[in-house]
C-alpha cells in the first residue's frame, strides 16, 4: 500500500473507471470512484490550539449526514482528517499523506494561517484544490498566483476596515487604543484597521498594546490603554482574553467606545462570563448568526443546525460558534461538489468553487451570500455592524461589502 507505484495506481483507477463506465474524461480523476469522492482535511486535535479541532469534527458529522441522505450525485464523501497540532511541519507531513498516499480529490478547510502558509505553494504545484481554508488572512484570495487556493470567511483586514470606517464617520476626533494578539491574526486586524483609517491613523492611534497567546493575563495592557486617555478601544483578542479585557475595562472605570473583533462575539463564552452589564454597547462586525444569541432561537437555519447537532454530533457543544462555522462551510463544500455534476476532476472542482452565485448558508446573517468568480476567491465578503444591548446583538447600518467598495 505504502509503496504502490504510480503506474499501478493508475492502472487500478483506470480499471475501476472503465468497469463503472464513468463518463469520458474521468479516467484520470484522482480521489474519485463511481461510489465515492475523497476529501482531505487537517485540524488541530491535540496541542494548545485544539479548541479549533471541533470544526474538523463537525464537518465530518455533516458529511455523514450527506452520505446518509444518499451522498452527492450518488457518490459518498470519504472525509479523511488528520491531526496537525497547529504545527506547520506536521501539516506539511499530513497534507502530503493526504495528497500522495490517500490521493484525495481536494483538500478542504485546513486550519490556521501558519499551517496553510506551509502548504500553500505545495498545493499549487501539485494542482490540488485547496479549498475554503479556515483562516482570516488575506493572501488566500490570489487567483492569479495561486489558482488552486481559496479562502472562506471575511478576512481580518476587511473587518478591520469596517471598524475604521465606522470610527472615521462617528468619532472623527477619536483617540484610539488597541490591544492585539502578537501573531498573524492580530497583525492582520491591525493592518486592516490602520489602512482603513488612512493617513489619519498616525495621529488617531495613541497606543498599541500586544499580548502573547501564552500570557495568562492582560491587566497591565488595559491599565496602560486607559492611561493613554484613549476614548476608542479596538479589542483584537481571542475569547479567553476578550473576557478579561471587557471585565477589566469595566472594573477600572474606563468607558471607551469599545470595538470587539468578530472572533470573540459569542454571548455564551465571552459576553456572559465578562458580565452583561460590562458588555453593554460593545460594537462588533458579524457575518454569522451568533449561535447563543436569543434573537435566532426560532430561526429556521438555527433550528436546523440544532437538530443536525443533536443527531450527528451530540458530543459537540451547542454554545460553540465553531460548530456553526463548520456546519456552514461543510454545506458550501457539498454545494460545490453537487455543482460539479459528474465531472469531479480537480480542474472542475476548482472551476465550480470559483462559480458560486448568491448562495445562502443557514447560519449566515440574512442578506449575506456566498459569491465567487474566477477573479474573486473570497467567498464571504459582507459583514454587518452590531451593537450589544445587554441581551442580544442589535444589527445596525447596512451590509458592508468589501468587494463592492473596492
Amino acid at each position, binding site marked *: 500500500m505504502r509503496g504502490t507505484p504510480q503506474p499501478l495506481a493508475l492502472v487500478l483507477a483506470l480499471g475501476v473507471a472503465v468497469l463503472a463506465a464513468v463518463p469520458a474524461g474521468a479516467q484520470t480523476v484522482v480521489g474519485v470512484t463511481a461510489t465515492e469522492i475523497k476529501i482531505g482535511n487537517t485540524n488541530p486535535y*491535540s496541542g*494548545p490550539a*485544539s*479548541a479549533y*479541532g*471541533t470544526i474538523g469534527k463537525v464537518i465530518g458529522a455533516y458529511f455523514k449526514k450527506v452520505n446518509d441522505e444518499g451522498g452527492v450525485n450518488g457518490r459518498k464523501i470519504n472525509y479523511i482528517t488528520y491531526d496537525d497540532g497547529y504545527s506547520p511541519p506536521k501539516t506539511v507531513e499530513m497534507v502530503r499523506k493526504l495528497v500522495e498516499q490517500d490521493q484525495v480529490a481536494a483538500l478542504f478547510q485546513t486550519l490556521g494561517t501558519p499551517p496553510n502558509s506551509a502548504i500553500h505553494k505545495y498545493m499549487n504545484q501539485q494542482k490540488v484544490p485547496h479549498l475554503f481554508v479556515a483562516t482570516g488572512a488575506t493572501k488566500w484570495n490570489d487567483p492569479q498566483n495561486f489558482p488552486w487556493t481559496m479562502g472562506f470567511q471575511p478576512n481580518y483586514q476587511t473587518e478591520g476596515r469596517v471598524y475604521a470606517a465606522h470610527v472615521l464617520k462617528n468619532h472623527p476626533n477619536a483617540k484610539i487604543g488597541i490591544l492585539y494578539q*502578537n501573531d498573524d491574526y492580530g497583525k492582520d486586524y491591525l493592518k486592516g484597521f490602520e489602512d482603513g483609517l488612512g493617513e489619519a491613523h498616525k495621529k488617531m492611534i495613541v497606543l498599541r*498594546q*500586544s*499580548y*502573547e497567546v*501564552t*500570557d*495568562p*493575563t492582560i*491587566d*497591565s*495592557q488595559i*491599565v*496602560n490603554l486607559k*492611561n493613554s486617555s484613549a476614548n476608542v478601544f479596538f479589542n483584537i483578542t481571542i*475569547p*479567553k482574553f476578550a*473576557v*478579561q479585557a471587557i471585565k477589566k475595562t469595566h*472594573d*477600572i*472605570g474606563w468607558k471607551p467606545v469599545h470595538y470587539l473583533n468578530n472572533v470573540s462575539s459569542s454571548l*455564551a*463564552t465571552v459576553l*456572559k*462570563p465578562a458580565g452583561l452589564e460590562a458588555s453593554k454597547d460593545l460594537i462588533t462586525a458579524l457575518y454569522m448568526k451568533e449561535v447563543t444569541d436569543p434573537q435566532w432561537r426560532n430561526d429556521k437555519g438555527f433550528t436546523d443546525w440544532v437538530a443536525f447537532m443533536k443527531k450527528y454530533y451530540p*458530543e*459537540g*457543544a451547542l*454554545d*460553540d460558534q465553531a460548530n456553526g462555522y463548520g456546519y456552514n462551510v461543510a454545506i458550501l463544500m457539498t454545494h460545490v461538489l453537487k455543482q460539479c455534476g459528474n465531472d469531479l476532476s480537480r480542474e472542475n472542482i476548482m472551476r465550480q468553487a470559483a462559480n458560486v452565485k448568491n448562495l445562502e448558508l443557514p447560519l449566515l446573517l440574512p442578506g449575506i451570500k456566498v459569491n465567487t468568480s474566477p477573479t474573486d476567491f473570497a467567498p464571504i465578503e459582507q459583514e454587518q455592524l452590531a451593537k450589544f444591548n445587554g441581551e442580544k446583538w442589535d444589527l445596525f447600518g447596512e451590509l458592508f461589502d468589501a468587494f463592492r467598495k473596492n
Partner: protein
Amino acid sequence: MDIFIQQVVSGLATGGIYASLALALVMIYQATDVVNFAQGELAMFATYICWTLIHAGLQYWAAFVSTLAIAFVGGVVIERVVIRPVENAPILSIVMVTLGLLVICNSIAGWMWTYVQKPFPSPFPENPFKFGNIVFGAHDLGEIQVTLLVLLCIYLFFRFTPLGLAMRAAAHNPVSSRLVGIRVGWMLALGWGLAAVFGAVAGMMVAPVLTLEPNLMGGVQIYAFAAATLGGFTSPGGAVLGGFIVGVVENLVGTYVGFIGTELKFTVALAMIIVVLLVKPTGLFGTTVVKRV
C-alpha cells in the same frame, strides 16, 4: 504616579496567580525531589471537577472542599499507580512520565468537557475596591490572601509537624529515612496528594479570572516555573515572592521600557531570571544541597 501604582497592583494580582501554582510545584519538589510537569494540568482537571460539582447543584464552598478531597486522593493514587513503577528509574524517566500525564490530562479534559471556555464562579465580591484612582479587584485581593494562607500552611506543616519532618526526610535521604522507620513510599504519595490539593486551590483561584478551559494552566505553569526558579525551588516563601516579582517586573518593563514595549516583555522577564540565577544559582532563597563526594 497613579499609573505606576496601578501597574504594581495589577502585577501583584497576576503574580499571585503565578505564585499559587508555583507553591504546588515547590511542594512536590520538596516532598519528592521531582519536578512535576503535569502539575498545572492536574490543577486544571481538579477545577473541572469543582465546576461539575457546582453544576450538579453543590454550594460553592461544599464543591470547593470536596474538590480538595478528591484532588488529594487523586494525587495519592497517581503516585501509587503511575509514578511508582518508575520510582527508581533515572530522574528524566520520571519527568517523562509527568509529561505523559500532562498530555493525557489535557486531552481527556478536552474530550470530556469540550474546549469551550466556561465561566467559573469566584467566592469573593464582584465589585472592585477603589482607593482614589487605584483599583483593586476584589477577586485579586482574595486570591492573594488565599495564596499567602496556603504558604502559611505549608510553612507550619513542614516546620512544626512530625509528618512534615518525615516527608522532608524521605525526600532528602530515603535510605536513612527508611532506617529510622519512615514509610518513604507513603511519604512520597502524601507529597503528591498535598501538591495536588495546592494545585487545585490554584486552579479554582485562577479560573474565575482566566475562564475555565483545558489550556487554563498552560501559560500559568510556564510563569510558575519562572517564579519558582527565581525564588528557589526549595523555598515556598521564595516561590511566592518570585511570583510577585515576575508579575510586577513584567508589567513595569512593558509599561516603561519604550523600545521593548509589550512585544518583548516576557523575554525580558526571562532574561532577568537568568541573570538572577547567575548570581544566585539556586534562586533568591534556595539552598544548595550539599553533596558528599
